[in-house]
């Protein structure tokens, strides 16, 4: 359990706290199945207990009468089982149809790319300069369908925000999609649901559902390039970033750093977590992550970077300006 999860309510990571029409359909189907199974279980156990504990003797029935009554019981039980299963087949198909129907043209398109072990999230636009790229944090407007185009660069991952919809795999060389529509504003946690290597367990993400207005403000801010720092320490930090191994993998729009191997850091300070939902985004956590990521997520692709403490502090100050 990481602190990043504890910051939200416990229902923000549960299939039993649905916050979208899709999740609600899945949840009520699950409830119906659970309830039916529970009732049947009680009935079966009761019948079994009655059969084993009942007092024998007394009124003796003829063989013919017993045979007839047994036949009736078996026929009724078989028919009931078939009917129940058939009802669930129909319910299952109708839920499947409802959650995969075409969301319509007004839906927002978000491209999510799975990497070992983080999520790249891209909001595209007809104009490429309006594209916004972030990582491990999916902002969605409340009340508007959001379609996710799912891709992967390495192995199969699976996107699963339990409060909002079921799972959908991200397959290398193939495009998959899933959509949902958040009902209420909130921060929901999601997780990779397909084993994808060492740090599969620490490949989480947040879905942040917010009202249309604040979503639009957020998206506009994400489209901006990073501002050149004004104070001398942050400026020194930028120099450290550009002259050390950071620059080989990360992008900060507005600087020469443009590699797309690791997460885009243009607006790093605006995110709530680092390392794919593993740690809250604080200065101390960021320092520990830069200096020794292998201690936090063993096997992670990011190498440990040895920096002077002055350089590290300057770098952290710079990263904190990337709002």
């Amino acid at each position, binding site marked *: 359990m990481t602190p990043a999860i504890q910051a939200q309510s416990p229902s923000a990571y549960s299939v039993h706290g649905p916050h979208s029409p899709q999740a609600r359909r899945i949840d009520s189907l699950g409830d119906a199945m659970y309830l039916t199974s529970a009732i049947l279980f009680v009935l079966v156990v009761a019948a079994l207990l009655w059969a084993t504990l009942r007092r024998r003797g007394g009124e003796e029935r003829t063989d013919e009468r017993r045979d007839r009554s047994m036949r009736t019981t078996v026929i009724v039980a078989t028919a009931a089982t078939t009917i129940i299963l058939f009802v669930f087949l129909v319910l299952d198909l109708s839920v499947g149809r409802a959650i995969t129907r075409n969301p319509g043209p007004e839906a927002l398109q978000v491209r999510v790319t799975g990497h070992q072990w983080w999520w790249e999230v891209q909001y595209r636009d007809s104009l490429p300069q309006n594209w916004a790229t972030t990582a491990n944090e999916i902002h969605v407007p409340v009340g508007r369908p959001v379609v996710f185009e799912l891709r992967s660069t390495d192995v199969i991952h699976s996107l699963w925000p339990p409060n909002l919809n079921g799972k959908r795999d991200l397959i290398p060389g193939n495009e998959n999609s899933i959509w949902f529509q958040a009902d209420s504003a909130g921060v929901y946690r999601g997780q990779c649901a397909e084993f994808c290597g060492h740090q599969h367990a620490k490949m989480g993400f947040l879905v942040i559902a917010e009202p249309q207005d604040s979503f639009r403000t957020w998206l506009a801010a994400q489209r901006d390039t990073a501002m050149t720092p004004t104070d001398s320490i942050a400026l020194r930090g930028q120099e450290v970033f550009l*002259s050390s191994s950071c620059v080989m993998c990360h992008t900060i729009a507005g600087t020469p750093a443009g590699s797309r191997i690791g997460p885009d850091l243009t607006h790093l300070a605006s995110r709530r977590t680092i390392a794919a939902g593993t740690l809250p985004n604080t200065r101390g956590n960021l320092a520990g992550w830069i200096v020794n990521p292998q201690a936090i997520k063993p096997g992670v692709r990011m190498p440990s970077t040895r920096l002077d403490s002055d350089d590290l502090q300057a770098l952290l100050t710079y990263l904190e300006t990337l709002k």
Partner: protein
Amino acid sequence: MIASPPSRFTRLLQAGAIVVLMLPACEREERRFNPPPSATPGAARRVTQLQPGPPVQTIGVPSPSSKGGPYEENAYGVSQGKTLYNQFNCAGCHSQGGGGMGPPLMDDNWLYGSVPENIFETIVQGRPNGMPAFGNKIVSDQVWQIVAYVRSMSGLLRKDVAPGRSDDMYVRSQEQATQKAVPVTDPQP
């Protein structure tokens, strides 16, 4: 018919055979998540002005000597090196070993030496006529992984360590299947 239980000797022999079979795999797949600070020969010496990103000035430190690369016998390290070779765009000049703008890496001709330390220095310091200096830009552990992969391209690594498959389209025979190209002892730079 019931077979008689194997004798103690037979059972010992079987267990021994399994242990012997497992031995070759000991080093091969080892993942080193927390590598010890490895030696970085000549990290600060630069013999070219070219490098990725904006120019950087570093103060020179004496180069400690090292004994062979740490990933020469580690298949996982070599495959990581292969990934990094492509991600850091070595392929942009050297292609998949056949060379292009840069010299080929899959032949027997080594302008600046074929031992791991030579290749490490070539990557870190850069070389005249186009090879950028990657010193400070790639951490030494990853440089060693790339070094091991570069050596596998001309068959200088053991066959069971060299990569046997590619993530992308196959443009050359696998490193594992590459015949060893014995380095020319006195190359003309």
